């Protein structure tokens, strides 16, 4: 992904269509200025988000991943975000064993009316990721790079 060098980091958002994507729209309509790093993947429901998408993104070099859905009890599909809450919370606690800073992944709830909250979430999360800097997950460990270089 070509982010602007020195300016942006790779931040991927998974947003449910009904609440958070709408919240991001509301923020746009309200012209609430936000950092430009975030790229949003629209999904029907936070329950659609397999934690493996998050891991795929993090292993794929994303510097931060943000998931946002409807507030608990407000799910358009009644229950999707309840499952998401459990799965994503479990995922967050799993990341450290891989050597991934858990702060690189957050999940939250933003409704379609909460444009300002969305602005705040994006701004805060992006700032946190910038504070952490680029993720260092390399496709191959340093030692392996040496090994592979030798094998060429």
């Amino acid at each position: 992904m070509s982010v602007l060098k020195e300016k942006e980091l790779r931040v991927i958002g998974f947003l449910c269509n009904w609440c958070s994507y709408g919240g991001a729209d509301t923020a746009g309509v309200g012209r609430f200025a936000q950092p430009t790093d975030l790229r949003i993947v629209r999904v029907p429901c936070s329950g659609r988000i397999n934690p493996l998408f998050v891991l795929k993104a993090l292993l794929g070099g994303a510097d931060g991943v943000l998931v946002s859905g409807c507030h608990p009890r407000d799910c358009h599909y009644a229950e999707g975000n309840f499952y998401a809450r459990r799965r994503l919370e479990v995922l967050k606690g799993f990341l450290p064993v891989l050597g991934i800073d858990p702060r690189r992944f957050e999940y939250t709830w933003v409704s379609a009316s909460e444009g300002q909250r969305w602005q705040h979430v994006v701004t805060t999360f992006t700032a946190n990721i910038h504070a952490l800097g680029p993720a260092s997950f390399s496709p191959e460990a340093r030692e392996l790079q040496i090994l592979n270089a030798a094998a060429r």
Partner: protein
Amino acid sequence: MVMSTDTAKKFVSFEALPDFLAQLAQGACVYAPRRENKAVVYRPWSPGDNVEFAARPTESCKHVIFPRSEELFSFTRGGEGENPDDSSLILQEASEPGPAVIFGALSCDARGFLAFDPVYDGCGTGGKARDVYYLKRRAITTLVVRTCKTPLNTCFCTWVGGGPASSEGADALMTEIGNGLLFEAVSDKGAALLQSLPDASAEQGAEATASREAAQGRFPQPADIKAAPGSLRALFDSAPFWEKQTAQCLYCGACTYLCPTCYCFNITDESNGIRGVRLRSWDNCMSPLFTLETSGHNPRPAKFNRLKNRVGHKFSYYPKIHSGRFSCCGCGRCIKSCPSSVDIRKIVLDAIKEAANV
């Protein structure tokens, strides 16, 4: 591997070994067994690395010549941008492999390539369908094997024509003596590799010979498995026999992927839009996907069908078309590393016994 030079014996002390390896590493990638946590694997050697001689490698060294996943070529699709109607495909060959040395492999590992060679050299096609990828790597890889001092419980190289000091399929054989290693080239490639080394003394040569003979004595007497090809064919339809033999099998691929003679592969294209690569990667006949057809039909649906094929292939179907040579080098890795303790020796012997009773 025809011998054209005298079997000059060379010697390297353990002290001088790193220098020798460093010298080899200048012209080639040197793979040597290395201990990594709980496993011993072949890794590119670099100065400072220890070569593991005590424990036998967990894996075979076949991946050096037959990579686990090998890029055959890459492709770029035309038809974008300026000229959207261009439907051409631009192919680019994978980068050429460089020369390699496998140092300190087991002699059974080298014999494993003997099962590969005819298959990849176009046997049965009159030499037409030659596998250039395999043959290229085989040609530029020099294989130095070592004499095994003692057998493991799972070793049965002697059953299939091998032994602890066999140099079949290798370019050079080394034997540990005293404070170093005695080398004997068995091919031109081997001789070229060793030429810079000092000659060994006659005493050292004798010591190595004695050591090899002693090792030979420690290895088990071969079981008689001459009847295996016929027995296995006879049992082809004996489902109950195979079901019983297979009950404990969990049909993973540990046996086939650790096996020095298993040569099956799968081909997949991995493409990301415009660019893609064609990969050849190891395949495993124990997996139900191995024979799964597009229709959903699977001629080997149950694990017993598949284990029967694996054993049958090694001890019956392959020897039938390859002058009686078993597609097994007796390294015993499939037994040693089987999570479920499946023992291919027992299956072959049981099959011979069962067929005799039928």
